[in-house]
């Protein structure tokens, strides 16, 4: 006898599952369909067109916003991954007092409301500018650099969560073998640990990148006049004539980010499989 469900229960669960999948994907599919619709986004469909996509390319402001987001996402992810590697090593390979505090601190950006974090940084930078301009005539200001600072903080826990599981499976004995063979700590790191860790680093980068690329709340407070893509998108949503164009870009961004995330996920799983299935869940987090 199947214990978890009866036959009927199983069938209804299957139906429920696929209904939910439809619910989850329908709005996205509809959005994609309307990006090819020659007219307002409403029924009946008025004909096939690709000119919304053409309009996007010639919309300077939009392209600039996309570019800004790409820059912010790249820089903040690189920093977040670097800090994430350092923290992961410390949490997993080092013994020190206050580890629970460090661990709580690095993971707390997971639960802070981004709204609260955004205004906190806004207040901090405002104060900083007041002090700096008065004493040194230096203006820090709001802009992409401020957004990068905020995004690193919120991306950091995600990078650690991506790196830790793989690092956990990398046996310390590999490092020891390298050491025994005469490698310096630096050589060991560069020639043994880092190459083995690369898949996790790539997927951590992609996770951080997608997070930053589409983050709105923090960016809306910190971007100032340099609107990133989500901030721009949000501001333009009130202009109905722009809607089809926005839908077109959105579809592209949507598919791109889906592919990115999927490849990150598949890459990570392949790497984890390659290093064997030794699930050594240590009570760290």
């Amino acid at each position, binding site marked *: 006898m199947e*214990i*978890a*469900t*009866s036959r009927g*229960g199983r069938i209804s*669960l*299957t139906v*429920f*599952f696929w209904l939910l999948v439809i619910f*989850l994907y329908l*709005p*996205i599919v*509809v*959005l994609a369909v*309307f990006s090819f619709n020659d007219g*307002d*986004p*409403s*029924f009946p469909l008025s004909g096939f067109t690709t000119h919304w996509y053409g309009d996007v390319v010639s919309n300077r402001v939009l392209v600039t916003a996309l570019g800004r987001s790409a820059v912010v996402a790249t820089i903040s992810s690189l*920093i977040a991954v670097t*800090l*994430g590697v*350092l923290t992961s090593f410390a949490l997993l390979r*080092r013994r*020190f007092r206050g580890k629970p505090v460090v661990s709580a*601190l690095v*993971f*707390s950006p*997971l639960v*802070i*409301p*981004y*709204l*609260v*974090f955004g205004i*906190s*940084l*806004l207040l*901090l930078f405002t*104060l900083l500018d007041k002090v700096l301009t008065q004493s040194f005539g230096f203006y820090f200001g709001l802009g992409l650099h401020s957004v990068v*600072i*905020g995004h690193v*903080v919120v991306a*950091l826990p995600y990078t650690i*969560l991506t790196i*830790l599981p793989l690092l956990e499976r990398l046996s310390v004995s590999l490092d020891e073998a390298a050491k025994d063979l005469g490698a310096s700590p630096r050589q060991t790191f560069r020639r043994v640990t880092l190459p083995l860790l690369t898949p996790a680093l790539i997927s951590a980068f992609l996770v951080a990148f*997608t997070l930053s690329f*589409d983050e709105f*709340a923090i960016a809306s407070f910190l971007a100032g006049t340099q609107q990133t893509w*989500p901030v721009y998108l*949000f501001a333009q*949503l009130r202009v109905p004539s722009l809607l089809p164009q926005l839908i077109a870009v*959105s579809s592209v*961004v*949507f598919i791109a*980010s*889906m592919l990115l995330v*999927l490849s990150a996920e598949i890459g990570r799983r392949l790497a984890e499989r390659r290093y064997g299935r030794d699930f050594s*869940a240590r009570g760290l*987090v």
Partner: protein
Amino acid sequence: MATQEAAAPAKQWRRRERGVTAALLSAPMLWLLLFFVAPVVYVASYSLGAIKLFPTDTGVISLDDWSRFLGGGSIYLGLFWKSVRMSLTVSVVVVLLAYPIGYFLALCVRKLKYVLLLVIIVPFLTSFLLRVLAWKVMLGDRGVVNSALVSLHVRPANDPIEWLLYSQFTVMLVLAYVWIPFVALPIFVSLDNLDRSLLEAASDLGASRIKTFLRVTLPLSLPGLIAAFVFVFIPTIGEFVTPLLVGGTSGYMYGNAIQDLFTRGLDWQSGSVLAMFLLLVVAGLMAIFGRFVQVRSVAAD
């Protein structure tokens, strides 16, 4: 080299070890202290009036703003409870919808379970703003649903269903839509880690399926359930983007009040009080429920 190390006093070795740890942790800790802890502490002290940022600020430490906020008849406190009600509703609905999904994937599907899990989760990993936008396109007066109803001659062209967009209902619908994929994950993990032999034992001892579920499966998956609940409740209580896009005036939430105080009202001190209060609520929730929330379960395993 090895002999040197052995010969060196243990003290020196320990100092070097501590140096390595410090070197690893200094950059991340510095970043978080400067750009995470400091701003939050700063907002806390600003909400108490301890810092003079604008000429209008008093610069005198007082609890005035806090007592005005917490006092009877405060509109912001009322708004907070409204948001709590909305978030609670959303969290309950989402958990109720996601539980069968987690159950189905963990206990009824064998080979394809991770693939199907990915099918559920992928929408969550794509743009939040776009998913909300999709619903705006779906539900507007001339949106997909209304125009489809008109095309099918179910409703006359000049009489769209207005409550579809810009209502409390829409905000909750969209929030539920946004969070279901995410919540399926911790529930799936807790059910997938369940020891199957316990279920077999219950069945061998003559328990019916329902009894097995109520006495074995459900209690054992409770931590995942609570984690899922907290994972929806915390972000939705501070939500302000969704109400802005699909909420209209009746969907206005606590987070919108905070944003308005900072961007329109320019009453940063009251805004700080509201923000700190929200943060304290979240911290309180984490203190109570934190032990159920295995951070690791987020990392898609």
